[in-house]
């Protein structure tokens, strides 16, 4: 998680986007730098789950029944697959979502603060039938859940 330390520090330190904007306006931070520089390149450019977990500093996460991953069993089209992740594990601070078979599996990573519940709903592209995985961090430990989504070839009509 080293990649995120600076990012979180900047955000916490600034307290609000308003303050962050002030820093941007003052020329202290470039707009892209304020966001994108902290983008976890190692994790997002990893080509397999192992690489992503390493990039996230997640090691070998265990399972936990408090981590709920909701996906459809079948997707009519892989271009849009709804994925919901809810963590009831106390002190969950982040959620990462992976599509195992995609060329770059890490799809999104969210840090939560200031009252945000550890939940996220996203829509992902699946190049083919694949396991979708959710990885959360709670009390410094990582947990994982996974489910398969079958991608069908769309027909015509509708």
């Amino acid at each position: 998680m080293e990649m995120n330390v600076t990012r979180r520090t900047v955000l916490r330190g600034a307290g609000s986007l308003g303050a962050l904007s002030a820093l941007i306006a003052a020329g202290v931070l470039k707009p892209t730098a304020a966001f994108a520089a902290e983008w976890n390149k190692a994790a997002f450019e990893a080509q397999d789950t192992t690489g992503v977990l390493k990039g996230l500093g997640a090691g070998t996460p265990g399972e936990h029944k408090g981590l709920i991953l909701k996906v459809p069993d079948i997707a009519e089209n892989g271009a849009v697959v709804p994925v919901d992740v809810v963590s009831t594990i106390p002190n969950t601070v982040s959620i990462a979502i992976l599509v195992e078979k995609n060329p770059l599996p890490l799809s999104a990573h969210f840090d939560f603060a200031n009252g945000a519940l550890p939940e996220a709903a996203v829509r992902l592209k699946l190049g083919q039938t694949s396991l979708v995985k959710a990885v959360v961090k709670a009390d410094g430990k990582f947990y994982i859940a996974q489910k398969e989504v079958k991608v069908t070839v769309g027909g015509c009509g509708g």
Partner: protein
Amino acid sequence: MKYRIAIMAALAVTWTGSVLAQAKDPTIAGIEKYREMLGDDNPAELYEARGEILWKKAAGPKNVSLEKCDLGLGPGVVKGAYAKTPRYFGDAGRVMDIESRINWCRETIQGFSTADIVKKPFGSADKPSEIEDLLAYVVTASKGMKISPPNSHPKELEAFALGEALFHLRAGPYDFSCGTCHAVDGMRIRLQELPNLTKTADAKGAYTGWPAYRVSTSRLHSMQWRINDCFRQQRFPEPKYMSESVNALITFLAVMGEGAEYKGPALKR
């Protein structure tokens, strides 16, 4: 003999089995769950927002907005207008669907040429056409209304009759009609269940299912596009955009879907 009976019995079981399976097919159930999870966050809203700006912006050779456009409920009335189309427009002397009518306004009010309008009516994901944006704005303003095309003027009745005849017209290299797939129950193309458009419930769902944002193409498709593409799929020559035949078919479908509550642009696979 015994063997043959066994085969017959097996066939009978398979047949009934497959008929029953259509109701409880886990694949169909899975797809239903997928559709449910997609929810109602629809990228068509991005079209709608652009469309509203376009509607109110002065444009075209005459540099005026579309705010005086009469969609059937009087100049400038957008709310509820879509639900009451297709209809006969006296100024144009013909029955028009909503898309034809918006284009009529672009032509008569804003001064665009027909050639400009029909050049590229169906956009792409990267370049949506202006009519698709305008259409999204106009149809969304009928959200919550009941589909109720007037279907009373002689020209409207004529359009309905023509549309119905075209729906059942068998032709083309496959000797298909729209009805070959859409006037029977339980038809499917791969995983897509096909509505029986001669039945009220299916017709309501189908008519309110367009325009739709399709996730497979990442763009909004209009009813004009839907009809055009149905003909392409039947290997017919594709009908002309906004032609009498297309508007007649849309009239037929709208009247069949009468009474359905319109929920705004659909979201499809």
